[in-house]
């Protein structure tokens, strides 16, 4: 039944995404916006000129981090809704580290330090729910949701009371010194004589690419990754095979939290160059849609991230061109993608397989229809 298998991994996900976009189009149509025109504006707004491409790739960077984070947890059978909080705390780690040392250390020391800190803080914020799931039996979904809110409250407290720049009205820290700033891609390419328009795209996009390869290698080519997948597929079997699921839960969640924490590198060190509130802007939740759409594989995640990067940047352009549309249209699409490729993932399986068999499966017995 190779044909059926191909349908499962190839055709059905595409149909689900198409359904999500179809409903999105219907919503646009319902508020008197021509969906095709909207697609045109989004595509041009996302890829039409090099400034737009810069923004698209900058959003993509965030989604790669959060998408990989959700995916690694999914491989262990865990649903990490806490990407938002982990990214927030990861950014806090980056900011605190840089604020302490940026006047004393050079860039090439600060960069690895910042990566380490974002990973450590993000992982620590994921480790508590992981510990509670593994050793105390509380449900990881509920605890990670709670930790998102706790992270938000903690950040407001720290920013308003402790980290605010003295004399400043808005709760922001002081700007990092030059050694604590990640170079923008337009600066970096400028040094090599390649001129591109200034955008928030920075060096962390390279780190995102490296992370994709690292995650791919970890999940499919290491012993630990094998253990993670085994626990995710069948916990009982994993125990029989001598794998300790509790340890695997801790491992997978810490890696997941670390990956989410890297959003802090992009946002805090790469774009804002200071600690501030709400820099995560829902990227952690978008990671859920990205991971579901990308089928938890780095290649799929990169493609899904690009799509959402395009929607974020193009959606901003659309909101600018069409006063009737707001940027929240992208959030709506995100919800629809999670609905169709996540919750309703198997809705189309039966009908599609029946159609396939009717068209190409003339020789198969009718019993094979209930795939």
């Amino acid at each position, binding site marked *: 039944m190779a044909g059926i298998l191909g349908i499962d991994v190839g055709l059905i996900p595409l149909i689900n995404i198409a359904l999500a976009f179809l409903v999105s189009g219907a919503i646009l149509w319902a508020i008197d916006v021509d969906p095709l025109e909207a697609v045109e504006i989004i595509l041009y707004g996302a890829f039409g000129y090099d400034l737009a491409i810069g923004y698209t790739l900058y959003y993509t960077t965030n989604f790669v981090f959060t998408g990989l984070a959700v995916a690694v947890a999914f491989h262990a059978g865990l649903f990490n809704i806490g990407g938002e909080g982990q990214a927030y705390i990861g950014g806090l780690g980056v900011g605190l580290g840089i604020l302490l040392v940026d006047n004393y250390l050079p860039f090439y020391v600060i960069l690895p330090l910042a990566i380490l800190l974002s990973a450590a803080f993000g992982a620590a914020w994921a480790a508590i729910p992981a510990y509670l799931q593994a050793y105390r039996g509380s*449900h990881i*979904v*509920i605890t990670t*949701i709670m930790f998102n809110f706790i992270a938000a409250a903690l950040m407001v407290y720290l920013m308003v009371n402790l980290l605010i720049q003295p004399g400043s009205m808005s709760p922001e820290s002081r700007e990092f010194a030059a050694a604590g700033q990640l170079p923008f891609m337009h600066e970096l390419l400028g040094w090599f004589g390649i001129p591109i328009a200034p955008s928030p795209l920075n060096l962390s996009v390279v780190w995102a690419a490296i992370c994709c390869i690292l995650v791919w290698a970890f999940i499919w080519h290491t012993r630990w990754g094998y253990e993670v997948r085994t626990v995710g597929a069948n916990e009982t079997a994993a125990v029989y095979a001598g794998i300790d699921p509790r340890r695997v839960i801790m491992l997978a969640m810490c890696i997941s939290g670390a990956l989410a924490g890297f959003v802090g590198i992009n946002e805090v060190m790469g774009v804002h160059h200071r600690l501030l509130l709400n820099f995560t802007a829902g990227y952690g939740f978008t990671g859920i849609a990205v991971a579901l759409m990308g089928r938890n594989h780095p290649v799929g995640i990169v493609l899904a991230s690009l799509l959402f990067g395009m929607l974020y940047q193009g959606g901003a352009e659309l909101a600018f061109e069409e006063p009737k549309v707001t940027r929240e249209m992208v959030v709506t699409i995100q919800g629809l993608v999670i609905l169709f490729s996540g919750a309703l993932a198997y*809705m189309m399986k039966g009908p599609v397989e029946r159609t396939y068999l009717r068209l190409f499966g003339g020789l198969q017995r009718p019993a094979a229809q209930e795939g």
Partner: protein
Amino acid sequence: MADFLLNLLLIFDATLRVATPLVFAAMAGLFSERSGIIDISLEGKMLAAAFAAAATAAVTGSAWLALGAGIAVSVVLALLHGFACITHRGDQVVSGVAINILVSGLTVVLGTAWFARGGQTPSVSQDARFRPITLPGAEALADVPVIGALYSELISGHNLLVYLAFAAVPLTWWVVYRTRFGLRLRAVGENPGAVDTAGISVAFLRYRAVLCAGLLCGFAGTYLSIGQNAAFVREMTAGQGYIALAALIFGKWRPLPAMLACLMFGFLDAVAIRLQGVVVPVIGPIPVQLIQALPYVLTVVLLAGFIGRAVAPKAIGKAYVKER
């Protein structure tokens, strides 16, 4: 002293008002989760109902039509949740997250397109809201020392939905523990196989459970936008659906303890607003954020089994597959 008591009375008064949507939503969650369906989407259903109610009230000027619209939208979302989780055996958490994200985007998109106020609805006139009800005898009793103040300040003078919320608790208890439907509801959350063997449809039972959840979330959302406030504001639920979920867990999936947890969380919220900027001699200014985060922290601690033990319905989160 009298000043302090009056302040306390006002805080309790505010507690009731803040706790009302939590109580509705917690009872909603109770129906759903007791039947084995995790309901993360309390937040989304409340938000959608709040928007539908405010939009309807703004256009028609009728609070009752608004309540109907709020309930209808919430029920539709509940059925969507059921369609994904019961009919197609999708992941219940994923479905809940999808609904929450979808609603948080869609309310703003539709609100902006329809009312052109950046996602807000026009403010609703007094006639189109649920207004405070003065209970009989409240004014006559107001001068009686203790009871009078309690009755006229604390108990009287809320709108209909507040009283409905607290009436929903004993009603929920009665339905869940004293009716045949309730018995089956609890059974299907613990052991759906046994319910199926008894010849009762698991799917139909669970659909009715999520329907009850949708109904109650409709009340919660309507209260937010046209009871407590006079318009819909984007993201106006602000995590209250999750707090209600936390209260439900805190109350160990039982009606009365869940209501008490809602009251406690509501009290924390009411106190936090009043403590803004208050300086305590030794400690310094009270970190309001800490009080606001307390419901979440307490729930995590409870779930970790450090205070008591919260045991979820046994079959929660698992789709029922008939015949293997």
